[in-house]
């Protein structure tokens, strides 16, 4: 599926160390990552393997200790807030917990209006803005008329996560970092959210980085899978290769620990 031509984001020797001395923790350890335009990449690992830290570095939310990030061939420079804002026009995120992702004091209109303003629509007439917001809500099967004048906590988890996708629809970033977007949502709404994300990707051609511990999910959505253990990538490659014929013992263990439908789940190997 992916057009293996243009490199979108590249990380070289990315390292993040928390604490120092005896409390030193290396969360991300010399990670190299290359993302091509329009690709869907999954980073899979257990809790504590450093996948969220890696995502936060790529998003520019925390600074790397060592290493460089190249965005569209140029070294990323986000030392000032203005530069960061410029960078965030290109890279956006959906987080795990939709309940804590919103500012509880802001109404939903202002969440979506912010997105329009960020795309340079500050001077548009109000009617045009409403039209844009309604279009975004339609895309995620929400009704804008019902949402307007409501606060985020009045929505259900699935609705909030869909509103997040509506934000991405308005922002049209080059890269989307989805950090466990479906782990707080139950199985039947999961399919809806995934379908919407994939449809959105096809529409605006963005690169998606999926951070997840659910191997089944990674296998379903992604072109390339990276397996992360203790801050390092232990295995990477196309989804079919990594999941169906794993070679690293950690990957093998991870896959054998997932309950399956057609294969026997071996409980003796704990």
């Amino acid at each position, binding site marked *: 599926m992916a057009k293996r031509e243009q490199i979108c984001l590249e990380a070289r020797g990315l390292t993040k160390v928390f604490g120092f001395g005896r409390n030193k923790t290396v969360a991300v350890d010399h990670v190299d990552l290359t993302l091509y335009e329009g690709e869907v990449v999954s980073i899979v690992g*257990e*809790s504590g393997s450093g996948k969220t830290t890696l995502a936060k570095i790529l998003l520019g939310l925390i600074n790397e200790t060592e290493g460089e990030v190249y965005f569209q061939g140029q070294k990323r420079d986000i030392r000032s807030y203005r530069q960061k804002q410029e960078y965030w026009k290109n890279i956006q995120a959906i987080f795990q917990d939709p309940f804590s992702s919103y500012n509880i004091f802001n109404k939903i209109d202002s969440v979506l209006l912010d997105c329009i303003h960020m795309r340079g629509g500050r001077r548009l007439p109000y009617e045009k803005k409403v039209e844009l917001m309604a279009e975004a809500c339609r895309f995620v099967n929400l009704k804008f008329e019902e949402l307007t004048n409501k606060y985020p906590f009045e929505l259900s*988890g699935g609705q909030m996560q869909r509103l997040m996708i509506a934000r991405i629809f308005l922002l049209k970033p080059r890269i989307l970092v989805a950090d466990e977007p479906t782990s707080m949502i*139950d*199985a*039947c*709404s*999961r*399919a*809806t959210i*995934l*379908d919407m994300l994939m449809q959105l990707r096809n529409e605006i051609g963005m690169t998606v980085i999926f951070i997840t*511990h*659910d*191997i*089944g*999910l*990674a*296998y*379903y959505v992604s072109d390339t899978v990276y397996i992360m253990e203790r801050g390092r990538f232990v295995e990477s490659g196309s*989804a*079919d290769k990594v*999941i*169906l014929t794993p070679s690293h013992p950690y990957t093998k*263990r*991870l*896959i054998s*620990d*997932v*309950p*399956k*439908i*057609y*294969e026997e*789940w071996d*409980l003796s190997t*704990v």
Partner: protein
Amino acid sequence: MGKVILEVRELTTKYVTRFREDVYAVDHVSLKVEEGKSLGIAGESGCGKSTLALSLMGYYFPPLHYISGDIIIDGKNISGMKPDDVRKSILGREIAYIPQAAMNALNPTQKVIHFIEDVVQAHDPTKSKKDIYEMARALFESVGLPASVLQKYPVELSGGMKQRTVIAVAVILGPKVLIADEPSSALDVTSQKMVIKMLRDLMESGFIKAMIFITHELPLLYNVTDDIMVMYAGQIVEKGTAREAVFDPLHPYAKGLMGSIIVPEEGLRSAKLTAIPGVPPNLKKPPAGCRFADRCKYVRPECRVTSIAMREVGEGRMYRCVMSEKELREAYQNG
């Protein structure tokens, strides 16, 4: 057929909101669990799975209210008992309940042994601390937890360890039925496997006689339980063995639910996940007919008239739909 440990007949409970509105979260639920068997309850969030678990304990506190039905544990009817009696003689001994995210509720200022002392002394004040320690050590070692855990504080334990500790505290008095509400949902796959193995060990050693397992992760349910019950909007819509419910679901909702299973196995990428459109009905005013009618692809006019009865096909296999088994299968084949 083995001995029936837990039998529930037509249990109905409701929530009363602060505006005095009734919400019927569990509506005429009947079930049977035999000795040595486990029952899984599946369904989306808000369908009444956790309320059913809470109602099964027989211990009601506002806003949950008991309306009608019988809960029979090992021949003893516990419905209609006073809450205090239920707490003293039923909870912990006959029936144990592990609420969702129980591991986050451990008091951070107390050692693990304290929780066990609490539970045991509430039921048997004469027991000495030394006896309790010996009892706890024996149980912990039999389920593969090191005895050193007893002298630790909850913050010193990992997530999987905490969850297993919670299960051990819940079953210390050897209850007949264990109700586990999403015991593994916040854990990663390896700890999840350990928790499941512990539950399986407890069942096999006869420490607990029957288990009710609640989750929305269908692959997990399929691997853990013998029977699966699918709930929708407070009612049971499908019941059968794990194999039947996953591979050959009859009710359209169960069919949709099974279509959303994601497992890392060959053929998943080409398969299209089915999403069920719409949202569940508001239980303050449940629809007169089938509760799934608004989201069902095969809806007919007669679906919306009266409430639908369970149809029984084969032993223990039931579903709630106006269409016959043959009609449903034909409908699924034609898409």
